[in-house]
């Protein structure tokens, strides 16, 4: 599992949702093929739709059931984070999702539309502290995502809606 945060990459070096072809910063040596893209309003519960849409889009890849379930959880959590922390559940701010594939990997890019807040590095939650009431029981999202995919990258750039956008790139290996 690799976790990389890249801040303020120039737009030209990022393939943001809406540009279906191209290469990502994370794996410039790979040739990515566009599979699908979606846009969803930031409404509570829409992460389920995101999860189902990605699952349908990757159906032809015939992923093992374990990988598919992990991908679905990672997509749902990343979409929920984008809606809640990036877009603050403003329905008019969409979450954009792009699915790409290469010879040996699948990438899902999830982009919010605002917020200068830096996404924290995922930490292992302290379950004992949560059970003792010393910490909030919440705070599992990034940790779950990190454990569900082979690689997670975060890009920060300027949003066309003003402010900053975050793109979370989830990569799972489809070979090896």
């Amino acid at each position, binding site marked *: 599992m690799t976790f990389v945060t890249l801040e303020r990459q120039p737009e030209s070096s990022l393939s943001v949702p809406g540009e279906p072809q191209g290469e990502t910063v994370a794996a410039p040596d790979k040739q990515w093929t566009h599979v699908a893209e979606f846009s969803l309003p930031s409404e509570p*519960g829409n992460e389920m739709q995101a999860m189902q849409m990605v699952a349908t889009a990757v159906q032809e890849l015939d992923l093992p059931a*374990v990988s598919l379930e992990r991908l679905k959880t990672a997509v749902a959590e990343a979409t*929920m984070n984008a809606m809640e922390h990036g877009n603050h559940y403003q329905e008019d701010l969409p979450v954009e999702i792009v699915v790409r594939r290469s010879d040996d990997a699948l990438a899902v890019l999830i982009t919010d539309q605002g917020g200068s807040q830096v996404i924290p590095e995922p930490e292992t939650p302290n*379950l004992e502290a949560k059970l003792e009431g010393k910490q909030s029981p*919440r705070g*599992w999202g990034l940790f*779950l995502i990190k454990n569900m995919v082979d690689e997670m990258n975060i890009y920060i750039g300027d949003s066309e809606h003003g402010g900053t956008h975050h793109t979370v790139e989830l990569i799972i290996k489809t070979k090896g």
Partner: protein
Amino acid sequence: MAQPIFEAKVRLAGQRAIIDMFGEINAFADGDLNAAYSEAQAKGDADILLNFASVDYINSTGIALIVGLLAKARQARRDLLVCGLSDHYLEIFQITRLADFMKIYPDEQSALQAA
């Protein structure tokens, strides 16, 4: 707006309360799940079995709700048992270390037999 799709029902098996959960455990499940836990704690006087056999989705907020139930159970000195998790959610219970604090059984029958 997505509709909440969760239900929790409490029943007794001997002195043990069983919470049967249905649907999706996410933020929408908060009220019903905690109400079911309170009912289970009041009804039974042994450990409490959470039955996930009819649960098809748990997100990070759902994990937080289960952490909250576990905290309540520990405070009340009651064990929380778990059954009916799919392989995927069993993996998540292991990754989150919930499995270190809850006895996990494949199904209700094995949970009741073991206790």
